[in-house]
């Protein structure tokens, strides 16, 4: 069964020119999918469609076989958690554990179950020690981990992160990426990671590039980065390190396509020595 399956989904905002047209996307259970795309390409719109915050004009969305419609809205929302971009705009309570409990309270779970889930969610993001901390005093990375925990408390099978690392410093970004990788590996949560950072996309099993409301490319992350020129037409630029690796290969040096400076250095050293 597919974790997520959209068939011929179209959507446009009222009065806006932007349009998602005939979108077909399938995400497998346990998959780690990266979504890339320039500003305004429709990534957030896609995220909001996938858990029913926005409703498509036509087409169907299924989550583990359940159609996303009025009848099954909350059933689907429980399965598809979304973590947003701004760490300050998704917390409702001042205390960490109270905020994590919010979603579980909303769906009417008994208290003992909520307590268990808060415990589990905070443990999964490594924030158990800060369960009674005041949210506004946390770092950006910690706040986003709380946001992830708040989603985890609903025990979703799919987690969408809509540029959840965009406002963080490199350290915070690393914290979030680590947590997400772990959830994908250990909890078998299907991950859709929307990001501007190509390095993050490299962690995924598969990546899609969005362009003007359409899926322009689907491939492995490495495969996508190999299409350097094509990416430019979608207003996406490979990070400088990737361009350097590319030029080196063109110049006859045997290095892998990589965005990891360490790896590139290793490769250069190896081929130069030879």
């Amino acid at each position, binding site marked *: 069964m597919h974790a997520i399956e959209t068939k011929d989904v179209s959507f446009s905002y009222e009065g806006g020119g932007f349009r998602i047209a005939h979108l077909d996307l399938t995400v497998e259970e346990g998959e780690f999918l990266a979504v890339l795309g320039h500003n305004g390409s429709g990534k957030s719109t896609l995220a909001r469609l996938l858990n029913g915050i926005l409703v498509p004009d036509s087409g169907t969305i299924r989550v583990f076989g359940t159609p996303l419609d009025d009848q099954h809205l909350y059933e689907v929302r429980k399965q598809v958690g979304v973590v947003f971009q*701004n760490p300050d*705009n998704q917390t409702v309570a*001042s205390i960490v554990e109270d905020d994590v409990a919010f*979603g579980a309270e909303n769906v*009417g779970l008994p*208290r003992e179950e909520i307590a268990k889930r808060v415990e589990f969610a905070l443990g999964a993001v490594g924030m158990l020690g800060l369960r009674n901390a005041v949210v506004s005093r946390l770092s950006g990375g910690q706040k986003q981990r709380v946001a992830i925990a708040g989603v985890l408390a609903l025990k979703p099978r799919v987690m969408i992160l809509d540029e959840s690392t965009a406002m963080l410093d490199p350290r915070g970004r690393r914290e979030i990426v680590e947590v997400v990788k772990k959830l994908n590996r250990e909890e078998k949560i299907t991950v859709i990671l929307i990001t501007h950072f190509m390095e993050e996309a490299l962690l995924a099993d598969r990546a899609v590039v969005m362009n003007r409301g359409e899926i322009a490319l689907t491939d492995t992350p490495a495969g996508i980065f190999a299409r350097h020129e094509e990416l430019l037409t979608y207003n996406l630029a490979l990070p400088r390190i990737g361009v350097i690796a590319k030029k080196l290969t063109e110049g006859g040096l045997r290095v892998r396509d990589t965005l990891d400076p360490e790896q590139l250095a290793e490769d250069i050293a190896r081929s130069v020595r030879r």
Partner: protein
Amino acid sequence: MKDVAFGQYYPVNSFVHRCDPRLKLFFLVAFIAAIFVANNFWALGACAAVLIAVVALSRVPLGKVLRAIRGVLILVIFSAVISVFFYSGETVYWKYGILCVTREGIFFSVFLIIRLFLLVICSSMLTYTTTPVALTDGIESIFHVHVLALIMSIALRFIPILMDETERIKNAQKARGADFESGNIFKRIKAIVPILIPLILSAFRRADELGDAMDARCYMGGKKRTKYKKLTFSWRDLVAFLTAAALVTGVALLRVYVGGM
């Protein structure tokens, strides 16, 4: 300002802190009733004794408790002076036109001062020993309105964020040469507009995002909702309840059998 979530809350773990917020609200109402039923010094003394016991049990430093009085000192003195000069009574010490000082007037003023002090101290004990969130949780559970607690919780969460943001916008405008400190009142109000507009816009954007985040976490109003932390009464609350009941009864009995001064 980051501490707004705790208001005046004084974080120690005392008997009073651990009482149920609903009971503390009840206690406050009962205490206020007792203060106004009390019409002789015995009764008022009983109220004061109970309050002193509460303060001692709460482990809130005396300095903090007295600071609560300082805020209303002028008001209290003012009302006391007014009532001394305008209260009419039988034993007149001094008279000039409509102004007079009587024995009854002096008693009344002293009563007034003590009552107001007791009132202010007792209310501030509530805020010193209860977080705003616990307080609204209490109110929510008494009146069964879920949105109230949610609004309170979100407001407390976002006030520090918006304060920070105001500061940031203000500094940005200052960097562009805006002047908030000089000029007459109209000039200053005019200078605030360029702060207010971006602030309001940003608040709306935040609200929009928060709404989505709440939807994504299955928020569907208060109907099905359960609570993670439930308020429960304990033996402390029984002690507090009995104290309040005894105080009100005692004061009422003193009023009937001893009478006013």
